[in-house]
């Protein structure tokens, strides 16, 4: 086994990240966010520590991945009450760790669990929290975080005046990288009188029936925006996807219109894609969307507006009515 360390003896001033487990498996997003944070930790001369709350060490399914990760240390809190994600108990455990180890920063993947947990901790500690950060840098010895802002092609850079610096980091933005040295593993021992109780009782769990979309790892993405005018035309993208072996993506307005489910939203609060070919039908290219697809290898934009940002960004832009072009293309491919 590994070193046990008492809660009150935790080393201070490090950069902590949250390791999200589900049924013993560490979620990929917790490995992703180590990539940018490793550089941040290095330039601030701090250790990067992955904090994992689990019910049993034996049940961990991807321990190999954890051992290869970029973290300098992995801290485990092990208690049978941590089996399910309980917002209040997890907050209490992590708040205790923060109070004892006074970290410089604490970061979370922007998963549904991360987005539930991080604000509870920020509220409990009365500190600032940035959401959906997609770029981090160190300036004047301080962490500066970037995120796109609403509606316009404007990126905001934020700092936190409070300590620890806290943020949730967008999913799929960073690639998982592996480290050269195996991280040091430690188990944090909580005091005897710590209460593991929660006001939440998880009575039942129904695993998701929907197959998760393969959008984030798709090699080809066909995506649609408001320029397709209606749900019926948008649905034709699925026919095209079938022929090309592609996944269908969408812009935010289209998801809010109910043309397609939100899981297919590409952008700030949706999925980040990096396909070999991205084809955008009737998408003007608000920053909200383009941050989620700008790293595509080859971008095709089909739009009526020559000045649209996506048209400028594209490797190939076709100026015309996206509806008509989609219909003609389908006809041509089926013949």
């Amino acid at each position: 086994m590994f070193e046990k360390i008492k809660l009150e003896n935790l080393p201070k001033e490090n950069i902590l990240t949250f390791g999200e487990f589900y049924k013993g498996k560490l979620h990929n997003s917790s490995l992703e966010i180590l990539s940018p944070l490793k550089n941040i930790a290095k330039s601030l001369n701090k250790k990067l520590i992955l904090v994992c709350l689990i019910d049993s060490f034996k049940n961990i399914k991807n321990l190999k991945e954890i051992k290869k990760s970029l973290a300098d240390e992995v801290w485990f809190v092990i208690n049978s009450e941590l089996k399910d994600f309980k917002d209040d108990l997890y907050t209490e455990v992590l708040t205790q760790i923060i109070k004892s180890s006074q970290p410089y920063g604490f970061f979370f993947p922007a998963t549904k669990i991360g987005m539930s947990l991080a604000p509870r901790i920020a509220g409990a500690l009365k500190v600032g929290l940035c959401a959906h950060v997609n770029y981090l840098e160190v300036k004047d010895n301080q962490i500066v975080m970037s995120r796109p802002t609403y509606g316009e092609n404007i990126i905001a850079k934020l700092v936190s005046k409070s300590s620890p610096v806290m943020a949730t980091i967008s999913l799929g933005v960073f690639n998982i990288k592996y480290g050269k040295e195996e991280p040091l593993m430690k188990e944090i021992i909580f005091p005897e009188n710590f209460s593991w109780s929660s006001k939440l009782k998880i009575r039942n769990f129904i695993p998701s029936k929907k197959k998760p979309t393969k959008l984030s790892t798709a090699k080809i993405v066909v995506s649609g925006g408001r320029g397709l005018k209606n749900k019926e035309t948008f649905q034709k993208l699925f026919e095209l996807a079938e022929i090309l072996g592609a996944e269908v993506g969408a812009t935010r307005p289209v998801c809010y219109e109910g043309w397609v489910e939100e899981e297919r939203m590409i952008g700030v609060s949706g999925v980040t894609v990096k396909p070999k070919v991205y084809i955008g039908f009737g998408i003007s290219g608000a920053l909200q969307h383009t941050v989620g697809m700008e790293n595509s290898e080859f971008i095709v934009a089909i739009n009526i507006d020559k000045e649209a940002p996506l048209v400028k960004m594209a490797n190939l832009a076709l100026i015309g009515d996206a509806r008509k072009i989609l219909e003609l293309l389908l006809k041509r491919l089926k013949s």
Partner: protein
Amino acid sequence: MEKIIVCIKGVPKPGSIKVDPETHTLKRESMELILNPNDRPALELSARLKETYDAEVIVISMGPPNVVPLLKYAYASGADQMILLSDRAFAGSDTLATSYVLAKAIKKLSPFSLVLMGLKSIDGETAQVPPETAALLGIPSLTNVKNILKEKNKWIVIRENEYGEEEVEVEAPLIVSVSPVAFDYIRPPSLKRLIEVKNKEPLIWTASDLNLDPQKLGLSGSPTQVVEVYERKIEMKGNILEGEPQELVEKLIEVLKEKTLIKH
């Protein structure tokens, strides 16, 4: 009787956004505001709970006076009372400062059994305010909630995460954020209540009504600060083709072949 509080937000109508060049925050006073679309399912859930259980629904909104029509809309959709949290000192608040104001207002309405909010606003998109407010009040929070039922004196909450749906048992009071896709049908406001609300005005609570600490409000009370905003410059990289749709399709087919996405 259960007291259910619904928090709603006015968000800028897409296309009407103005950013204050000095503070880098959104200029809410000069914008046309619409009800945050994600708050509709929260209102709908409150109306459904009111139908099923004996409940009073209070709708509150923090914002400039131009959110009053949105409060009236919520009243017409079934709320019993409207409260506007409005003070110049609130401008520029980040999620922590916003949660502080909401927590104080909610506390003033104690005892309450449930607070409903939308999952996230479409402008800030942080989804942070519901859990942050709950943490400040020291009560449980659940996010991405799809339905709520009552069983004896407990709430049974169905919430969604990446892996599936959980059924959670919890005692009142608590704060939940409602999933944007919780309901297939959202009722329109009632005509009768739309007429009735014309002559009603919301109660207004300012910073002093809520005994708020001025240092915890607005920009100065916000630990996260925007230090710089910049426009993303787009490099022109490709070729732009104009012409007859048929020609453009042929060009696209060529590219698809080149990329070996199609064979023929």
